[in-house]
């Protein structure tokens, strides 16, 4: 058990910081500090390509596909320095963290050739098509249909909560390819190009006034027969594998974003005197503790190499950060007081902290509500009986 970084690690940290700070002070200074996911997508696609140009776009990937095969420590360090430098979130997060690793794990050689270089280069932006209206987090209830017709998959149905679909190039779609199949059986995992007549995207305006999410409609949407990952009917397996990638190093980058949010709250509390309030002090201390425990929980999870046993830190991570962040949003509001409820301009647009308050209400819902997370923890982690499905 060792927490410290080696001297070599620290040199790497300096290298990361130098390059990132240089970019944020130079060519890309216009995007520094942006936290809103929907802001200036074109510049951020350019940023993806800049990362790629300097081989920073997917350092954990194998070298042959554009990565650096970086050690865990290096991945941790890069994620931390990325956020520390105030670099905006990756618009190709889904491509680099989910689609890429899925293709690496389950794709054919041709698919690797087709997709990985473009993802690594920041040229192909991916989004994910899992949730459906009426199905929520219940992947087994997928109703979007796919059928093979004339050498093509023809897809009909609807996905929802497809984050950033409106700026993406590709979408992966879990669809039902076996007529009459139920539950996890008969699903197929397809990669589809978005720019086609059969796919229509409509933004979903959220309670914060922004529209990061979308509804995505498929009406005889098409993709070539070899667009599927794995075999027909293996969609469930692929999707489950993909969800496991969600618990990767990117969590540490996410946490550095949280660090920035908490630091902003701390600065606000110092500025407006809330830092003198013993009740606020306790809550800030709790937030600080919680953030550190997420960090060390993630490091435990990433250090765990024996994947045969269920890792408690991994299983509890989602609900932990979602709940922490929702509390953080409420803390932010209480630190700022009524001033947080008033925006600068005439538009219904919110600064980081009020936006955090509003947006964090989604954190406990998407990717499996806190209720579903607790089911998973009790069932997979503690061996409790599974919640019975109904047949309504």
């Amino acid at each position, binding site marked *: 058990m060792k927490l410290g970084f080696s001297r070599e690690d620290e040199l790497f940290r300096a290298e990361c910081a130098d390059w990132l700070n240089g970019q944020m002070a130079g060519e890309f200074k216009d995007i520094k500090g942006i936290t809103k996911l929907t802001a200036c997508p074109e510049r951020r696609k350019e940023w993806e390509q800049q990362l790629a140009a300097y081989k920073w776009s997917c350092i954990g990937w194998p070298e042959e596909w554009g990565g650096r095969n970086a050690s865990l420590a290096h991945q941790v360090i890069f994620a931390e320095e990325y956020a520390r430098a105030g670099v905006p979130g990756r618009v190709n997060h889904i491509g680099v963290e989910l689609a890429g690793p899925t293709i690496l794990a389950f794709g054919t050689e041709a698919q690797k050739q087709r997709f990985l270089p473009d993802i690594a280069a920041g040229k192909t932006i991916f989004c994910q098509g899992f949730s459906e209206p009426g199905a929520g987090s219940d992947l087994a209830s997928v109703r979007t249909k796919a059928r093979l017709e004339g050498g093509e998959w023809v897809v009909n149905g609807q996905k929802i909560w497809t984050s950033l679909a409106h700026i993406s190039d590709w979408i992966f779609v879990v669809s039902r390819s076996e007529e009459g199949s139920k539950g996890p059986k008969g699903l197929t995992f397809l990669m589809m190009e978005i720019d086609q007549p059969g796919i229509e995207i409509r933004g979903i305006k*959220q*309670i914060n006034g922004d529209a990061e999410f979308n509804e995505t409609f498929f009406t005889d949407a098409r993709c070539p027969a070899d667009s599927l990952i794995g075999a027909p009917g293996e969609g469930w397996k692929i999707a489950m594998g993909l969800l496991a990638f969600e618990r990767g190093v990117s969590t540490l980058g996410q946490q550095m974003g949280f660090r920035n949010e908490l630091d902003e709250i701390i600065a606000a509390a110092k500025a407006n005197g809330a830092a003198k309030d013993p009740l606020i002090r306790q809550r800030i201390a709790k937030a600080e503790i919680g953030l550190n425990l997420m960090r060390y929980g993630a490091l435990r999870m990433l250090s765990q190499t024996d994947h045969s046993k269920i890792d408690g830190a991994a299983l509890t991570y989602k609900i932990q950060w979602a709940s922490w962040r929702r509390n953080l949003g409420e803390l932010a509001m209480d630190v700022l007081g009524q001033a947080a409820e008033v925006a600068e301009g005439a538009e219904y647009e919110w600064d980081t902290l009020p936006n955090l308050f509003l947006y964090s209400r989604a954190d406990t819902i998407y990717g499996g509500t806190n209720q579903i997370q607790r089911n998973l923890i009790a069932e997979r982690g503690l061996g409790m009986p599974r919640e019975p499905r109904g047949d309504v």
Partner: protein
Amino acid sequence: MEFVFTDEQAMIAETARAFFTENATSERTRKAMAADGIDAELWTAFCQELGLSGIGIPESAGGAGLGLVELAIIAEAAGAQVAALPMLGSLAMAAQAIAAGGTPEQQAEWLPRLLSGEVVAGYVHDAALAANGDVLTGGDRFVAHGASAQVFVVTSNTGAWIVPVDAAGLAVTAQTTMDQTRPYAQVALAGVQGAPLGNPAAAIEAAHRAGFVTVAAEALGGAQAALDRTVGYAKERVQFGRAIGSFQAYKHRLADMMIEIEQARSAVYWAACAVDEGSDEAELAVHSAKSFAADTYFMCAGNMIQLHGGIGFTWEHDAHLYFKRARAIQSMLGSGNWHRERIASMILGDAA
């Protein structure tokens, strides 16, 4: 001692509930949200056709008599629909202040117009207001529906004045506000001549107590509506092949909402009664009601979003109207911690 509605109170509750359910629709509220946060047609109907605007104002002052219990009943019904109305600032605070502390002339000049809805009043409290005689300097950044007001009641901790919107030195700036059903305005006074109320202490006490009880009652109505709507959703929505209301965790969350709401109901009507009856407990009760009901509302509105899943997080669904109103009620007129610290002072004496 009988802690249930009288027949008359039950009738007022039924009337108000029917009126707001029918008229304060989501569609109309959203139209108001995009403008100044007032459904003008609803306000006129409420004041003139329904004639409930005079409740809580003595008949001698042109009101309908009755008291805070009845005012709370109405606020509860309005809150259940998150109605876009200037009830809080104009009636519960400004009109109450003038009715309790204004001279007969001031009452005659302003109350009929406020109760008819013809004039909207705003209530500006500034504990640090500088009053040089009746020349006032100070203001407040968070005056509810302030941008729609034609007159303000301005108070410090000891003084109270009437200031029309066209007074020299007065500046009103509308603010983009999270709760668009009750937008704030910044009201700045720079050497403004105010018309002093005859009995400022009575005015301030009446306005604050009525304000606390009104937002608490709104919160109660909003919390109950959040529960009712979620219960409705729980019965119809199917996930994992089951009505989601059949999941015990879901049921228990609903039960927790009901547990809080029942207490909030006791709190609101205890406070309203205690003020109306001049009870020794009035101060304790109004601080209890404001803090408890606001927290209950926020908890219930948050749960409403959570228990609706993704749809509860969309602009299209009404959950966010409740959620934002709940947050606004928590932070306006003193935070929960502030109210509880007032109670602690009564019990324990002042802090260090």
